[in-house]
């Protein structure tokens, strides 16, 4: 995915994304991080076509994003949002089956393929046994997995996740990030996600895009991007970094 000089303004007074250009590499996990209001979620919403930039363009496989038909695009890219309203009286399986919409028309529907994709999505997210459970009866971690399962049923190549671990406790955070990693390694999904936790970003990403005030400050492999100076500059936080055989590379924030 090639991103060229994107400018987005929600209110026409300031640019929430101010000339962002980058490349999302196929088959890799790319994580966008940065302080609150830096435009990371806005960038994700441009990639997923939920936000149309004022200028600049994004191309996917050498075709402008805006030239894709909506169903065609939904087969290429799926997104899981941070907060989702839980519809009443809907089972997991029913919700996941909505993910097949891009493949269905009023007249045509391939039931066999739909069933296969739904089974696969439920299996990946470990929800097979709960398939007939009502969404309202699920815990926060399970709900997040259900939305991921719906996105998986789209059988897209790219999966976007907007702050997937926010509002989850540490157990579900790890469970979710391990799932994301498995989807990347075993099924070849290109992952683009927004995270808050810098150590999680370091541990789970191939590429990190660090943003501040609508611009990209640094990008590349985690070890190259995340340094003491950059963290000080972007977040205003003093920190130390440590490398350990068992723990790998990690950051400990000291203070402000």
């Amino acid at each position, binding site marked *: 995915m090639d991103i060229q000089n994107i400018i987005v303004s929600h209110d026409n007074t300031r640019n929430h994304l101010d000339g962002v250009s980058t490349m999302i590499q196929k088959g890799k996990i790319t994580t966008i991080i940065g302080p609150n209001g830096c435009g990371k979620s806005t960038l994700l919403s441009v990639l997923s076509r*939920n936000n149309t930039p004022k200028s600049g363009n994004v191309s996917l496989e050498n075709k402008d994003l805006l030239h894709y038909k*909506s169903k065609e695009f*939904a087969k290429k890219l799926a997104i899981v949002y941070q907060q*989702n309203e839980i*519809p*009443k009286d809907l089972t997991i399986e029913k919700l996941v089956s*909505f*993910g097949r*919409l891009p493949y269905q028309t009023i007249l045509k529907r391939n039931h066999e393929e739909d069933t296969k994709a739904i089974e696969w999505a439920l299996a990946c997210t470990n929800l097979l046994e709960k398939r007939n459970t009502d969404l309202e009866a699920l815990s926060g971690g399970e709900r997040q997995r259900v939305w991921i399962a719906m996105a998986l049923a*789209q059988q897209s190549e790219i999966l976007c996740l907007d702050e997937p671990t926010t509002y989850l406790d540490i157990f579900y955070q790890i469970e979710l990030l391990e799932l994301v990693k498995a989807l990347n390694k075993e099924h070849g999904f290109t992952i683009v996600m927004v995270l808050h936790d810098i150590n999680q970003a370091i541990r789970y990403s191939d590429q990190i895009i660090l943003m501040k005030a609508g611009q990209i400050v640094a990008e590349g492999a985690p070890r190259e991007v995340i340094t003491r100076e950059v963290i000080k500059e972007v977040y205003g936080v003093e920190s130390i970094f440590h490398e350990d055989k068992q723990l790998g590379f990690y950051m400990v924030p000291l203070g402000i």
Partner: protein
Amino acid sequence: MTKKIVSFSIVIVLLLVSAVYAATTGSIKMGFFEFIAALFEDGNNQMEAIRDLRFPRIIVALFAGAALSVSGVLLQSVMRNPLADAGVIGISSGAAFVQLFIISFFPALFFMTPVLAFIGGAFACALVFALSWKSGLSPLKLILVGIAINAMFTGLTEAFISLGGSLNTSVSGVIGSNLTMRTWKDVSTIVTYGTVGLIAAFALFSWCNLLVLQDKTAKSLGFPVARARLIIAAVAVLLSAVSVVVAGVISFVGLLVPHIARRLVGHDHKVLIPFTALAGALLILVADTIGRTIVAPIEVPASTIMAIIGGPFLIFLLRKE
């Protein structure tokens, strides 16, 4: 599953019973077997009167109830709001006013009444949508906007009738919703447009189901949210407009019936829409029959009965919100 089957069976049985009861009760009375026998023979005077007077009334009540209830389901889905009802938020009164207004100046357009009512309803619906869009269609805001729109159109209609009372008296029927003196011509109007609307509504069930998702999520699945909203709303307006043309403004049906229906058969529109149609038909038929028999020979309009039941029900729903 069994709960759904039981609910459907009970409503269908009640519908048949009330239809027969409605046909045989009133100033002309008939026993059940006498009625069945008379149904298949010619020349029974009482039966001829029932055929000409009561049958149209019963059919109009059934279709108006079904149309209004299904219209409520569709509006609730489109506005993602459990409190939407064509009567309460002004779509019916918008339809009534525009139809009355244009017919008064251009009586020659009388044959186009359903179309005019549709235009009025669509205008009111668009107003409600536009004015409550900013608040993210929050249920309470939408109801408040709708009540204001409704008050405006009802007021305009009343003012117009009192100003032009001498101009054209025959149109004043649209404001009340008395189902007396319905003719077979009314029946053909409501059956034609009503059937089209009800079939269209059912055909849209999977779209209605998808609208429970937030817009951003539905869009990410490639679902044309805006187009779906527009089409579903158009069908909802058609259904309420046609019932206004034939049966006048009846509020609260579209609120009450879908709400109870969801409790009984769930939120899946594939089941909900047909069930709501049947239950709505039943409710208006019963309301009309009670209205014309309870203090006979005086008639209480079905809309009055619905308002008496519906008002408290709306308060009940608002308290739950």
